[in-house]
């Protein structure tokens, strides 16, 4: 009715924190504060809601990866007489891949700082460095795959290799989609500037990129390092 005096544009469902809404009063003194869903300080800003939702998505993505890791760990000895990790993996390549991805994550962090102080040039430079290093990583990984398949150690060779290509390929696919996303983010920053909406997307991208780095840490440890120690 008319006594529910909240402007519809700002908070149509009255989820907000309104300790003393005009013309709205219950018998007891503290309305607003203790209503369901209000929390301590009212609703969080959109920035926090978006980032938190994306964090939940990232965690579910990590859970999906854990299933691939479990598959790999179960099948690592099922080489069917074919090559083992010891025969196939070259640690120099993995070290370069790791360095590229780590530096890429660092550059992404610097780009985020630049975007927070609304520095156009350094944001773009940071994002470009992030993307180029990601490309280096992806190129090295694809080259490794190509060499392995040419040697007859493709995903069809053994259960071990199926699990290997599924796990490492899934991570590579994530890096690839991250690079596509990064390209669109650079274009959006260039065209639309530092609109709050763009900043939220940038933050989600940086969370995604850092999470990929975490998965790579698990990956190079479990697959490459443990796989090559006898």
């Amino acid at each position, binding site marked *: 009715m008319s006594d529910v005096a909240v402007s519809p544009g700002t908070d149509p469902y009255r989820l907000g924190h309104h300790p003393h809404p005009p013309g709205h009063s219950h018998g007891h003194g503290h309305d607003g504060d203790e209503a369901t869903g209000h*929390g*301590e*300080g*009212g*609703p*969080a*800003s959109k*920035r*926090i809601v*978006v*980032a*938190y939702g*994306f*964090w*939940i998505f990232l*965690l*579910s993505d*990590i*859970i999906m990866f*854990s*299933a691939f*890791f*479990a*598959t790999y*760990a*179960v099948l690592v000895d099922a080489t069917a007489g074919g090559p083992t990790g010891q025969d196939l993996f070259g*640690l120099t390549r993995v*070290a370069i891949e*790791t*360095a590229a991805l*780590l*530096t890429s*994550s*660092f550059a992404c*962090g*610097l780009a*985020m*700082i630049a975007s*927070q*102080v*609304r520095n156009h040039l350094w944001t773009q430079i940071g994002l470009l460095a992030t993307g180029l290093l990601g490309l280096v990583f992806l190129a090295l990984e694809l080259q490794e795959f190509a060499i392995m398949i040419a040697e007859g150690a493709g995903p069809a060779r053994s259960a071990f290799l199926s699990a290997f290509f599924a796990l490492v390929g899934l991570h590579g696919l994530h890096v690839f989609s991250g690079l596509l996303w990064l390209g669109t983010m650079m274009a959006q920053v260039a065209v639309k500037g530092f609109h*709050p909406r763009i900043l939220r997307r940038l*933050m989600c991208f*940086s*969370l995604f990129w*850092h*999470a990929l*780095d*975490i998965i790579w*840490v*698990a990956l*190079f*440890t*479990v697959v490459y*390092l*443990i796989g*090559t*120690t*006898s």
Partner: protein
Amino acid sequence: MSPHPAPLDQHDLAPGDEQISETIASGVRGYLVGFILAVLLTAISFYVAKSDLLWGPGIAMGLVVLAIAQMGVHLVFFLHITTSPDSTNNVLALAFGVLIVFLVLAGSLWIMANLAHNVMPDQMQQMMNMQG
């Protein structure tokens, strides 16, 4: 030019947002510390894997410990998931994720190891003959 736009969020922190860093220098310093720690842990991992610094059968365990430490470094310095009270929701979500990851990994390995142990080699041979 504060990175936190709304005065609204006095009790919440988005994942990825840093609480203390109000200046560029402190923000860069945070990422730099994280980067150096991550590089250090990675280097140790690669070194340990190829040297006999650790007792042979213990290398895998040592590498896992190093990897978990490095994931912690990434979470704190890059994703800014910290123990500050404003980050409680993020930490709780992470804890639940870690629980599920642990259940999936440990459960799969346990069950499959148990199966592999219970299936005798000659049984396996019979099954393969039946399939072939």
